[in-house]
């Protein structure tokens, strides 16, 4: 009778490599990737800086962004019309949000200007960086 090692397998007919631990590990990996994976597509809208906005030598148009409409040259109009007019003018745009306008509205305005083909958009900072 030989001394039994602590790693001796109780049943001699059991195969050396079993699938159960592999399944355990793969299952844990699967759960990890399911929880840690993001499928939501993120996109970006430039907020200016020395980014890729081309500089145009023309006086900029001021677009004052409010919750319901925008003011372009003192005239209130819907956002889409202002974007179309600005795109037709071919001048850079300075977008200035009114106080209390949420980021969602700002994103919509930037997206509308981008859709209309306005590339030179600067954003006037409301309050200075604290």
């Amino acid at each position, binding site marked *: 009778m030989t001394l039994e090692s602590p790693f001796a397998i*109780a*049943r001699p*007919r*059991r*195969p050396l490599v*079993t*699938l*159960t*631990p*592999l*399944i*355990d590990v*793969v*299952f844990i*990996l*699967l759960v990890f*990737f*399911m929880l*840690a*994976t*993001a*499928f*939501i*597509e*993120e*996109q*970006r*809208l*430039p*907020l*200016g*800086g*020395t*980014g890729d906005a081309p500089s145009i030598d023309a006086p900029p148009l001021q677009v004052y*962004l409010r919750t319901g409409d925008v003011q372009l040259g003192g005239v209130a109009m819907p956002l889409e019309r202002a974007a179309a007019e600005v795109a037709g003018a071919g001048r850079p745009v300075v977008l200035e*949000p009114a*106080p*209390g*306008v*949420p*980021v*969602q*509205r*700002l*994103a*919509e305005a*930037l*997206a509308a200007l*981008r*859709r209309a083909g306005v590339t030179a958009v600067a*954003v*006037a*900072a*409301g*309050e*200075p*960086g*604290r």
Partner: protein
Amino acid sequence: MSGGLFSTGAPRRGALGDEAMLPLVNVVLLLLVFFMVAGSLRPPEAFPLDPARAEGEAVGAAGPLRVSLSADGRVALGGQSLTRDALMAQVPRGAAVLLRADAGAAASAALGLARGLQEAGARRVDLLVLTP
């Protein structure tokens, strides 16, 4: 006896029991490969927030610096909450920043933060949006 997820404590049937599990292993492995290939790992977040919904440009593969702004004005760099002064001190010169602002935050606050980041040395600041 390995205390595996699928061990029932019943007497093992040897190689036959393992072979019966092969289709399950195949399916689980396929699912694993799908999640690894199709998804991208979520970056850490300091606090939950709801970004604005709009159409934008694609975010590049190289992950830029992520700065978060909550609706009540808290800021975070990556997954770490910090004060505004500490944030400005930690922005590397020439960095591209992705501003993850809550849709309900004030636009003026987000723009003020963006300008502060640019004054602190950020080369460009982009607003993060989700496809509607």
